C-alpha cells in the first residue's frame, strides 16, 4: 500500500473541505453585501470591521438554536434529508482539477482528488442524487408547504438535468474524453494567436448559455428559486427545519453555487489556464493557475448574486416551458451542429 499516496490525497481533501466551507460561509456575507450594493444600502456592518465577522455570528447562532423535530414527522428521514443534501454538495469537488501539478519533496502532486476517466458523468451522477436530500426532507416534514416545495424542486431539477447533460455532450465530442483534467488541459492551446486562450466558451457559446441556465436551475437560485419562494410556500422544503439542519440546506445551496461556478470556469472558461501561464517556472505555474481559477470562480459567484438581485422569479409553467420546450431542443441542435461542423468542415 502506497501510504504517501493516501496521505497526499487526505491532505488535499482536508484542504479542499476547509476551503469549500470557508467560501460557502463567506458567500453568505458576500450575498448580503452585493444585495446591499445593488440596492444602494450598506449591508451588514456591525460584527467586526465592515461586518466581516457576520458569517461567524450566523454560524454560531445556527449551532445554538433548538433542534426542532415536528411530532408528526418521520423522525429519521427528517434528519437524513439535510444530511444527504450536504453530503452530495461536498462530494462533487472530487473530480475537479484545481490546478496543474506541484513538485514537492521529489514527488509529483496532482491538484485533483481523483482523476477518474468518467469525470463529467460523475458530476451528472451527483447532480441527479442531489434531488433526494430535498425530496426526503420535504416529504418527511409532513407539512403541505414542505411537500409542495420538495415536489416543485425535484421536478425542476430533473427537467433541467436533461438539457445540462445534452449541452455537455458537445464539449465531450470536442475533447474526446470524459475526464475533467483532459478537458481543462486541452484549453491551454492557442486561439487567434493567444497562447492559453483556447477556451471552450468561444467554441461553444450556445452550449455555455444552456449550461449556465441549467446550473442556475439545479442550484435552485433565482430566477429559478420557486421551491423556496417565500410569498407562496413560506420556506419551501425547509419550512419545518431549524438549527444546523436548516443550516445544512442553506449551506448546501451555497456549496453547490461554488461548485457550479467552478464547473463553469473549468469546462467553459479554461479552468486554471490563462494567457502567459506557460512562461512561469515550475511550481509557480501550479500556484498561479489555481489563483486564476479562483478569480474566475469568484466572478461567477458574483454573477449568481448579480442575477438574483436583478431578475424576478419565473412562474412554474414558464419554468417548465423554458426547460423542456426551449433548452432541450436548443441543446440537441447545438449537439448536431457541433457534430456536423466537426465531421464535414
Amino acid at each position, binding site marked *: 500500500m502506497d501510504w504517501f499516496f493516501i496521505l497526499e490525497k487526505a491532505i488535499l481533501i482536508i484542504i479542499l473541505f476547509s476551503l469549500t466551507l470557508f467560501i460557502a460561509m463567506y458567500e453568505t456575507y458576500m450575498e448580503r453585501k452585493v444585495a446591499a450594493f445593488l440596492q444602494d444600502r450598506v449591508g451588514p456592518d456591525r460584527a467586526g470591521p465592515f461586518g466581516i465577522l457576520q458569517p461567524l455570528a450566523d454560524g454560531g447562532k445556527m449551532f445554538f438554536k433548538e433542534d426542532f423535530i415536528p411530532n408528526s414527522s418521520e423522525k429519521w428521514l427528517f434528519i437524513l434529508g439535510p444530511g444527504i443534501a450536504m453530503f452530495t454538495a461536498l462530494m462533487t469537488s472530487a473530480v475537479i482539477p484545481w490546478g496543474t501539478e506541484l513538485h514537492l519533496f521529489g514527488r509529483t502532486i496532482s491538484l485533483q482528488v481523483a482523476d*477518474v*476517466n468518467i469525470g463529467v458523468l460523475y458530476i451528472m451522477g451527483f447532480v441527479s442524487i442531489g434531488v433526494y436530500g430535498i425530496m*426526503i426532507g420535504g*416529504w418527511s416534514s409532513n407539512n403541505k408547504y414542505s411537500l409542495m416545495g420538495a415536489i416543485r424542486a425535484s421536478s425542476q431539477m430533473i427537467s433541467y438535468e436533461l438539457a445540462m447533460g445534452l449541452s455537455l455532450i458537445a464539449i465531450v465530442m470536442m475533447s474526446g474524453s470524459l475526464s475533467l483534467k483532459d478537458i481543462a488541459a486541452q484549453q491551454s492551446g492557442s486561439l487567434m494567436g493567444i497562447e492559453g486562450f483556447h477556451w471552450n466558451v468561444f467554441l461553444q457559446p450556445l452550449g455555455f448559455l444552456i449550461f449556465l441556465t441549467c446550473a442556475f436551475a439545479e442550484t435552485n437560485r433565482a430566477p429559478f428559486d420557486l421551491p423556496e419562494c417565500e410569498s407562496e410556500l413560506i420556506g419551501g422544503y425547509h419550512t419545518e427545519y431549524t438549527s444546523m439542519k436548516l443550516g445544512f440546506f442553506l449551506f448546501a445551496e451555497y456549496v453547490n453555487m461554488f461548485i457550479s461556478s467552478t464547473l463553469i470556469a473549468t469546462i467553459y472558461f479554461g479552468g486554471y489556464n490563462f494567457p502567459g501561464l506557460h512562461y512561469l517556472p515550475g511550481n509557480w505555474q501550479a500556484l498561479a493557475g489555481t489563483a486564476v481559477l479562483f478569480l474566475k470562480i469568484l466572478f461567477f459567484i458574483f454573477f449568481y448574486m448579480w442575477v438574483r438581485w436583478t431578475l424576478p422569479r419565473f412562474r412554474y409553467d414558464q419554468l417548465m416551458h423554458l426547460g423542456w420546450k426551449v433548452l432541450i431542443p436548443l441543446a440537441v441542435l447545438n449537439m448536431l451542429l457541433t457534430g456536423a461542423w466537426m465531421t464535414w468542415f
Partner: protein
Amino acid sequence: MIEILFYVLSFVSIVTGLMVVFAKSPIHSVLSLIVTFFAIAGQYILLNAQFLAIVHIIVYAGAIMVLFLFVLMLLNLNKEAEPNKDIAMKLAGVISASLLMVTLTGALHGSVVPEATLAVNTSNGLVKNLGQVLFKDFVVPFEISSLLFLAAMAGAVLLGKKHPSQITDSEIQKI
C-alpha cells in the same frame, strides 16, 4: 484489498436488498433500494466497468428511483387508505414469488459458469471501448432501441395524460 471490498459491498447489497422486502414503509423500501444500487455500482467499479457503474447510478438511483419516490408521494399514504391484504392476495403473492424462484433456479442451473473470468481483457468496460463496440458492431440494435423509447413515450403519454376536455374541476383543485 479488492477481496475485502468485494465482501463488504456484497454484504451491504444483500442486507439492504432484504430491507427492501421487509421494510414496513414503502419509502424505506425505496431508500434501501437506492443503497443497494450504490453497492452494485461499487461492484462494477471493482470489475473496472466504470461506465456501467456511473450509468447505474445516474439511471437507476438518479432517475428510476426518483420516479418511484414520486409515485409513492403521489399516492395517498395514510393508514386508512392502505389496501386490504386478504388471504387471496397473500396467496397470489406467494404463488407468483415461487414461480419466479423456480424460473431463476432453472435458468442458473442450465447456464455455464465461465472458468477464467480473470484473464479476460478488463478494459472492456471503459467508455472508449464500449462506444467502439456499440457504434460499430451493434449499430442496428442501437437504432432499434430508439424505437423502443418511442413506444415507451407513447405509452407514458397515453397513461398519464387526459384530454383537456375530460379534466374535471376537482382534479384542477389538486396541487
